[in-house]
């Protein structure tokens, strides 16, 4: 595997633990295991100095220093990884403290990446962690090229898609070092998943996008005229009422005054319609799109990710993501404990790692506007600001503003006026470096 490269520097050649060496005593457990052959290892696995050296030499990037990120940093440090970078743009909030165990009340307001790196380095001497407070998009290919493994512990699908597309784009067939295994974890309540992508070789995050279909939005007319659920009243306050009454203030979902305002508006609307159940907590949950999160699920998923990274770096056991093998572990812990480990297949029409356009069945009578709107909810695309063009012409551009104005009249037109049956068109979104290629098939 590309990841199991020989260490550049000379490493200790002792075969197993030696009682005189403190470092060796400290890493006794991991080194004992790495110094012995395994029952499932490849025949060419050489126990001892090579896997032990590889762990110390591998440079790992951790994206996210939240619930998963804190666990990942701890796990990597105690797996013997010594060169780690961590990226996170967020600062610590009090609601992080029930699971993000590297943070204390005194740290609230400080950048997560910095506090997490400091803490782990202090607790595990010899481990070097470099924090970067910012967005992954701030960094370029040269930066990402320095790592051997990238581990993602994010709650944002957008960021995952961006790093996935970047790592796939970096692969240069003539340079094996350009292939960076991407280990990704995600959790929601008692559920989660861990997966490994070998960019261009195995199914990527974009291939798997439809595994995480977005929730259908409530139609605006329901919010505006016929609310039935407490959530409808909250969304009304959030989407309609705020625009009407506080248009000039940018809504800050972390500002208690803003949430209280929305809560009160939602509550009085609920009263008007005899709807019960609007609470402050629900208002916050709906407006911030809060996903329940607990320490135990984060521990399971983060450790699974780091276990894969450990196996990839050392070749001490088969790992997820080896081409042709399982690459995905689904985890469910609310009713008993259940894992489903399988191989997600790479898609030839994946807009990131495939090369074929995807067929899209369309109703010729539909307007272009309806098609444009549908991209936000299509499980395989999930694009909020799509730009559409064919080889010949621009159909519609959401941004920049000038182009939007120029192409807006097209939204009213029927698809049959804009596209020919069998014609290829491309959809992109400025948020990602991804172009979806579709072939129009009129039903």
């Amino acid at each position, binding site marked *: 595997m590309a990841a199991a490269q020989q260490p550049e520097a000379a490493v200790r050649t002792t075969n197993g633990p030696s009682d005189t060496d403190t470092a060796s005593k400290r890493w006794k457990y991991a080194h004992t295991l790495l110094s012995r052959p395994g*029952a499932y290892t490849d025949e060419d696995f050489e126990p001892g100095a090579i896997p032990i050296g590889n762990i110390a030499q591998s440079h790992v990037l951790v994206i996210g220093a939240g619930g998963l990120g804190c666990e990942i940093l*701890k796990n990597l440090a*105690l797996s013997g990884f010594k060169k780690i970078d961590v990226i996170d743009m967020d600062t610590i909030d009090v609601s992080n403290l*029930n699971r993000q165990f590297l943070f204390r009340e005194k740290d609230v307001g400080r950048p997560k990446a910095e506090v997490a790196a400091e803490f782990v380095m202090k607790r595990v001497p010899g481990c070097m962690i470099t924090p970067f407070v910012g967005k992954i998009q701030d960094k370029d290919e040269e930066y990402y090229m320095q790592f051997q493994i990238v581990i993602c512990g994010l709650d944002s699908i957008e960021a995952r898609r961006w790093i996935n597309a970047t790592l796939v784009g970096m692969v240069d067939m003539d340079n094996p070092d350009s292939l960076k295994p991407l280990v990704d974890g995600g959790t929601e309540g008692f559920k989660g998943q861990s997966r490994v992508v070998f960019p261009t070789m195995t199914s990527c995050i974009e291939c798997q996008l439809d595994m995480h279909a977005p929730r259908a939005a409530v139609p605006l007319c329901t919010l505006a005229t016929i609310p039935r659920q407490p959530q409808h009243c909250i969304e009304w306050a959030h989407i309609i009422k705020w625009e009407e009454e*506080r248009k000039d203030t940018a809504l800050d979902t972390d500002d208690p005054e803003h949430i209280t305002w929305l809560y009160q508006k939602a509550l009085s609307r609920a009263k008007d319609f005899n709807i019960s159940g609007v*609470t402050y907590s629900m208002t916050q949950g709906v407006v911030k799109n809060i996903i329940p999160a607990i320490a135990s699920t984060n*521990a399971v998923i983060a*450790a699974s990710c780091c276990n894969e990274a450990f196996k990839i770096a050392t070749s001490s056991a088969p790992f997820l993501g080896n081409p042709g093998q399982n690459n995905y572990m689904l985890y469910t812990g609310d009713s008993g404990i259940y894992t489903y480990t399988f191989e997600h297949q790479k898609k030839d029409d994946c807009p990131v790692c495939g090369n074929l356009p995807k067929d899209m069945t369309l109703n010729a009578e539909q307007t272009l506007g309806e098609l444009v709107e549908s991209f936000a909810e299509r499980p395989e695309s999930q694009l909020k600001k799509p730009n559409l063009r064919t080889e010949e012409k621009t159909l519609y551009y959401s941004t920049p503003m000038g182009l939007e104005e120029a192409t807006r009249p097209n939204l009213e037109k029927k698809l049959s006026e804009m596209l020919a049956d069998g014609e290829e068109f491309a959809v992109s979104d400025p948020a990602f470096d991804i172009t979806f290629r579709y072939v129009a098939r009129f039903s």
Partner: protein
Amino acid sequence: MATEDIPPPLHDIPTAKEKKYDRQLRLWGASGQIALEETHVLLINNGPGVTGVETLKNLVLPGIGQFTILDPTLVSEADLGVNFFLDDASLGKFRAAETVKLLMELNPTVQGHAISEPLETFIAQEKPFARYNLILAAAPIEPAILATIQRRAQELQIPTFTIHSTGFFSAFSALLPPAFPIVDTHPDSTATTDLRLLLPWPELVQFANEMTAGLEEGKMTAQEKAHIPWVCLILRYLEKWKETHAGKVPETYKEKTEFRSLVRSGDPHEENFDEACAAVLKSLNPPTPSSSVREILSAPETSSLDATSPAFWFIAHAIHLFYTQHKQLPLPGAVPDMKAQSADYIKLQNIYKTKARQDCAEVLESVRKLEKSTGRSPKMAVDEKDVENFCKGAAHIHLVRGRPLQIAGLEEGQPAKFGDRATTMAMELTTPDSLIGLHIAFLAWDEYIATHRSSAKSAGGELPKVPGSGPGDFEADTEKMTGIAHKIVDSLIKEAGTFIEDPEYSEVKENVGKFCMELVRAGGGELHNIASLTGGLVAQEVIKVITRQYIPVDNTCLFDGVASRSQVLRV
């Protein structure tokens, strides 16, 4: 700003505690949190002891009341390379006290205690577990001592978890009371919808008639038609269907698809008709209780109530009476969102809520009668709220029948027995990808420990020797442990009264041998990742048991970190 017209509902603003625990309160609510905060967990730590400590981390963070670590060992250099809750200054000090100190930093509201007494003397006390609500016991533990722990825990009905974590593999078992019922199982919201469309009651029928009056005669505006709740559409078309089908409702799959076409004929496009069509297959099933619910209703505890029976069985008995009389469980009363005018939807919700309240009142009345007839003290009266919750979730209640732990190495030369589970577990041997082989390898690991002594002494006296722990032990111990494991396999096959032929038999043995080799490879060491993952799993199960919410593992969970998968076996 136009906020003056509404007084700020200050009492609803979350407290500091609610803010800190917001993400978990959305899962187990205030009642679960209270249960957690009233709990005192004891960790009996052995070996490298990382999994137990990682488990505690995941319990301290969400705010468990108290924890105690019992561990007589001193912190070694090797501990520092694998345990996050120790630092360089801990070296040479008591591991229990040092770990407690660093764990407590995670949450100022949690109380931690350390006991550095050897397990042998601790367990010999009068009532060693009286202060604790839950016990975690990490391997290696001498089988005789584990048997004592089990007996002491059973006397007080304290849930107990035993934990193994070695190299890439881990396992844990739950010792729960013989009857461990759960009301609040948190089923998927799609699974809970129970609208009784096949057995509507008069108020619901009347509402459906009002909502659909004039539908077929075309006397409705398009606006009205598009806002008939789909529940009413289905009820209306069921009446129509019955007219041409001898009063019967659609039963077979074919009839249901025909019925769906009938609904569709009412309108080709409207969203509420779409919703009705989509609901046909799911909502036209007669409400039959699951096998798990039937097991509870017919359980001996349900039928033989006495004055001191737990409230759960009183309610179960009352629900059984309700079911016998009405041939259905109490109505849960929830209505999913559907296209409708606000006022109509609220009316529909109220019709369901009212019926649910009536059903619940009937159950409550039975409960009160049962309390009287059994002579239950009024001080122990069943809480009305519990009856309400039980009625709401009646279709999803769950009962775990706790089993004693399978303890290996209790009698020398006697392989661990599988008892009433032998037949099922013998079948697992030849099930592809089953982790029964890993379970057997851990049994062999325990049996090895029961018969081998370490030359090193510790504060607690002689330590058991763990397979593969010496520098030159790998091959010899792999062979020894595999031999023990193969005996367990043979004994299991014999116990089940079955026979496995070659080549399958050889494959089973090879498979078990591989797990043995991997366990010996680790030499008793824990890999931090597997310890952390297992600590996540165990903490999750502890939380389920303490809060009595969600469904706990029954009874052994195995994790294979090579193949990255888990399996739960009932052994």
